[in-house]
């Protein structure tokens, strides 16, 4: 088993996949804590469907680089969605559901009507559930991913205190002169970038898992914002590595294996959390 793993690790393709996988799950877990706390757990789902719709349109128009369309469209939707939190005509969760389902249906419709490909359901399936495309990454894509991840992590560290203040209490922050709207905008843009990046890895349906599982697991065990953030980052990296390695060894689909690893780890965290609480109360 280990021999097999080491042979695989000699392949640059596998190394690339591991690098990209770890970075993407690290980025999404960092911002996941904020999103879960702001009650935007489903934004990953919603935005990834928007990205799916945009990809469908890009495919129809035969754009050589579909990122040029997908990224701006997703960013715009992210900004709109996070904005509805303050203006309550359509509540955040309803707005996400609406955009998510709408974009998914539209994307599939466009693909179906205009696509020239012979295997539409195969295309759709791989966009939604993630293909093996993480194992076919080019060096440029890996470099792009590394650069964007470094930017995302740097933004998170530099704005950590502001993100905390805005997440905990937006009104208080605004009243004390913090430019909460600007930071919300920043968070939205970063989220959109992460999601577009992550689509390569786990596909559009499973992005939510990368965002919510690390945060939820960390919240079972830790009590301060800093420890929750740090633990969810560690959790995300370990689960992605495990998921990737298992999927390579066992030949299972990458995205769902990573999510399965997340689910198992989440359950373990729940059990530890309950055990710790019981022990504390019995003392």
């Amino acid at each position, binding site marked *: 088993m280990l021999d097999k793993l080491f042979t695989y690790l000699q392949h640059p393709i596998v190394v690339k996949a591991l690098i990209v996988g770890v970075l993407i799950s690290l980025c999404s877990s960092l911002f996941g804590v904020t999103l879960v706390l702001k009650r935007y757990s489903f934004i990953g789902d919603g935005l990834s469907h928007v990205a799916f719709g945009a990809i469908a349109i890009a495919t129809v128009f035969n754009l050589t680089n579909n990122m040029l369309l997908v990224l701006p469209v997703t960013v715009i939707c992210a900004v709109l969605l996070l904005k509805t939190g303050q203006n309550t005509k359509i509540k955040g969760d309803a707005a996400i559901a609406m955009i998510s389902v709408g974009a998914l249906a539209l994307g599939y419709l466009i693909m179906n009507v205009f696509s020239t490909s012979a295997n539409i359901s195969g295309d759709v399936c791989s966009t939604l559930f993630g293909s093996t495309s993480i194992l076919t990454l080019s060096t440029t894509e890996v470099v792009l991913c590394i650069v964007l991840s470094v930017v995302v992590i740097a933004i998170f560290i530099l704005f950590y205190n502001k993100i905390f203040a805005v997440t*905990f*209490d937006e009104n*208080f922050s605004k009243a004390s002169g913090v430019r909460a709207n600007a930071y919300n905008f920043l968070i939205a843009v970063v989220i959109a970038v992460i999601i577009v990046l992550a689509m390569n890895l786990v596909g559009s349906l499973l992005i939510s898992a990368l965002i919510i599982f690390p945060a939820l697991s960390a919240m079972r065990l830790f009590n301060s914002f800093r420890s929750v953030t740090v633990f969810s980052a560690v959790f995300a990296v370990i689960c992605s590595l495990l998921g990737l390695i298992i999927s390579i060894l066992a030949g299972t689909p990458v995205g769902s294996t990573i999510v399965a690893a997340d689910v198992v780890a989440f359950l373990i965290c729940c059990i530890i959390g309950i055990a710790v609480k019981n022990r504390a109360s019995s003392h």
Partner: protein
Amino acid sequence: MSYITVKNLEVGYERKTITEPINFKVDKQDYLCIVGENGTGKSTLMKTLLGLIRPISGEITFGDGLKANEIGYLPQQTVVQRDFPASVKEIVLSGCQGRAGFRPFYNKEEKMLAKENMERMGIGQLADHCYRELSGGQQQRVLLARALCATRKVLLLDEPVSGLDPKVTAEMYDLIKNLNSEGITVIMISHDIAAAVKYATHILHIGNNIFYGSRDEYLESDEGKFFLSNREEGKKNAG
């Protein structure tokens, strides 16, 4: 010049006014209570004072060296905060965010300020505790300490005792009164008129009629008399 002067201010949402024009001023070391029934626009007025929503007409002027963002705000608790994983220290420190500006991390001075204010509110020993595991009264003290990090001049408190039991409520009122005697101006929203009459120096009553004046003037006014007669009746009924 007063800290805050409000002239013919009408507040509301989406260009719909929900109050008559309001006039009042807040001077240094005043203790102003804004009282009135639910739904009369107390919270909307407060949000307008804080600059969270725009006034529909009229004006708010800040003077006597007070800047608009030098007001410490104690909001009503939100659902999000109730299960938020954060330590007391982290929350109190976030009150310094306004003064930190674009600087990404807190400096020594700000950490000291947070520590002082935690001691001042009697929650120093809770610094590393989790906010969601504290009692209601302790949580209010945490938010008050945070507000004190944001201001040395004016506190705006939105129903600071809602959901607290009578003993903790009394402690909270005493705490606020002490801050006021230490020189901090207090503006408090409340529907507890009895407490308002007991502690405040000035009262702004929002409702069908708007009243603004000192506590004694309020007790002489129609609104005040109405309240007092209700209380007498309440006493009679209780007796």
